[in-house]
């Protein structure tokens, strides 16, 4: 699909000179309200007419957006591209276009004067678009287009320096949408859940002998570890106990999706053992227990079961302790 005419750059209703819109929706000055109503800048606004419908410049938190563009969050793709229709270029694809440095971050495509540019020249939000290799009669080599579903929007024409770059850009841009990322996240979320379920049922089956010693019911209580290393929260499920990470250090450098306590359990963030009451005193409402570790995320521990390295002092809420006949 070939664009019929080259892009004219950004939406035509805005002049590049119209700046000065603080991202403040509640600026209460009368002049500002009038300006918003009739959609023009302060100062050149005719008297408001109630039936007059015009669209004012949409505000955007540009400063934060630019900060994001310049921040060291890694870019998904970068490189030089030639563009037509930006400032200082004719609107027909004559000449070689303007060469800019492009940075793709998430679903946002920024352009800069150069890799050292200190302020982005432009932003293209990549939602609801299709990216395709440009075909004849576009005479440009290695060109591609970004076409939007939105009505009345002209496609953006860009060209790379070579075929590999062209293909890499088309690939990167066509997968830049939020929706695509969300799809993959949901898919993996489902897969993780399945993996956990199959792991849990596997464990239940093999640990039955040990678990049956303590009449465990399903007790989703939480306890916590007193002698840490690392500190963790205990909870019990089915006939085994699982330790859930409560801190980022425990879980490793990556925190869970919610940035707080999550179910990090897997081979590297769980501990398995059986508990007996112990004589340490703890806070009211808590039952101190000594756990004999069979296995844990910090490795299979050597030594006899009763040795200090194989035991852990923890505390369960009293309600949970009942489930475990402690």
């Amino acid at each position, binding site marked *: 699909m070939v664009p019929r005419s080259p892009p004219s*750059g*950004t*939406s035509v209703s*805005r002049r*590049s*000179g119209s*700046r000065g819109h*603080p*991202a403040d*929706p*509640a*600026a*209460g000055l009368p002049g500002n309200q009038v300006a918003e109503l009739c959609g023009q800048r302060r100062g050149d606004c005719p008297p408001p007419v109630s039936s007059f419908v015009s669209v*004012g*410049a*949409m*505000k*955007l*938190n*540009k*400063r*934060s957006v*630019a*900060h*994001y563009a310049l*921040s*060291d*969050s*890694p870019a*998904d*793709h970068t490189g030089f591209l030639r563009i037509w229709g930006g*400032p200082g270029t004719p609107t027909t694809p004559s000449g070689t276009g303007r060469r800019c440095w492009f940075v793709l971050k*998430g679903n*946002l495509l920024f352009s800069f004067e150069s890799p050292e540019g200190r*302020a*982005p*020249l*432009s*932003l*293209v939000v990549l*939602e*609801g678009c299709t990216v395709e290799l440009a075909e004849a009669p576009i005479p440009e080599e290695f060109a591609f287009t970004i076409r*939007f579903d*939105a009505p*009345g*929007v002209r496609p953006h024409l860009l060209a790379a320096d070579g075929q590999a770059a062209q293909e890499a850009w088309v690939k*990167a841009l066509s*997968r830049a949408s*939020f929706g695509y*990322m*969300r799809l*993959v996240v949901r898919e*993996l979320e489902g897969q*993780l859940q399945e*993996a*956990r379920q199959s792991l849990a049922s596997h464990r239940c089956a093999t640990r039955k002998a040990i678990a049956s010693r303590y009449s465990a019911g399903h007790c989703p209580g939480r306890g916590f570890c007193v002698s840490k290393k690392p500190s963790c929260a205990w909870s019990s499920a089915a006939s085994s106990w699982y330790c859930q990470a409560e801190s980022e250090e425990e879980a490793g450098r*990556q925190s*869970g*999706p919610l*940035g707080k306590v999550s179910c990090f359990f897997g081979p590297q963030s769980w501990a398995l053992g059986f508990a007996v009451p112990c004589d340490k005193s703890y806070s009211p409402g808590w039952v101190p227990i000594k756990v004999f570790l069979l296995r844990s995320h910090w490795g299979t521990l050597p030594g006899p079961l009763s040795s200090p390295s194989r035991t852990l002092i923890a505390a369960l809420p009293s309600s949970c302790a009942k489930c475990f006949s402690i």
Partner: protein
Amino acid sequence: MRYNEKELRALSRQPAELAAELGMRGPKKGSVAKRRLVKLVVNFLFYFRTDEAEPLGALLLERCRVAQEEPGGFSISFVEDPERKYHFECCSQEQCEQWTEALRRASYEYMRRSLIFYRNEIQKMTGKDPLEQFGISEETRFQLSSLPRDGQSARVSSRLDELD
């Protein structure tokens, strides 16, 4: 900095993750709360006058901080200027919690972290890279090295105020 406003307006018409009428107050000192229709679409928060179809504005939600504010409200601020807050008033604590949760998860960077986390966990549990079957395991956006190093910002321009 120019941006594709038309496309962003079209985005504001897409199905929203969350939409509600909330009180909204800008970050400028002395600004007054106004009723706005607030709509969360992908990583943008659009706000409209309650009787208008075209958005007044949008906030990109990357590198933002969402905090609950007493009573029954929340604020959004951005990493580079945490004192500059957009305030929102909810009609109930539940609504407030619903919005803060949704907004915290609304950024592309949050999704990227989630994805990398899930990928890692699945790999540890099953020994297999879940992205391989889709043929996307080499994509830059899914690599561990794609996580931003918080607390550092490079080349932030003092000319940001003169964006156009």
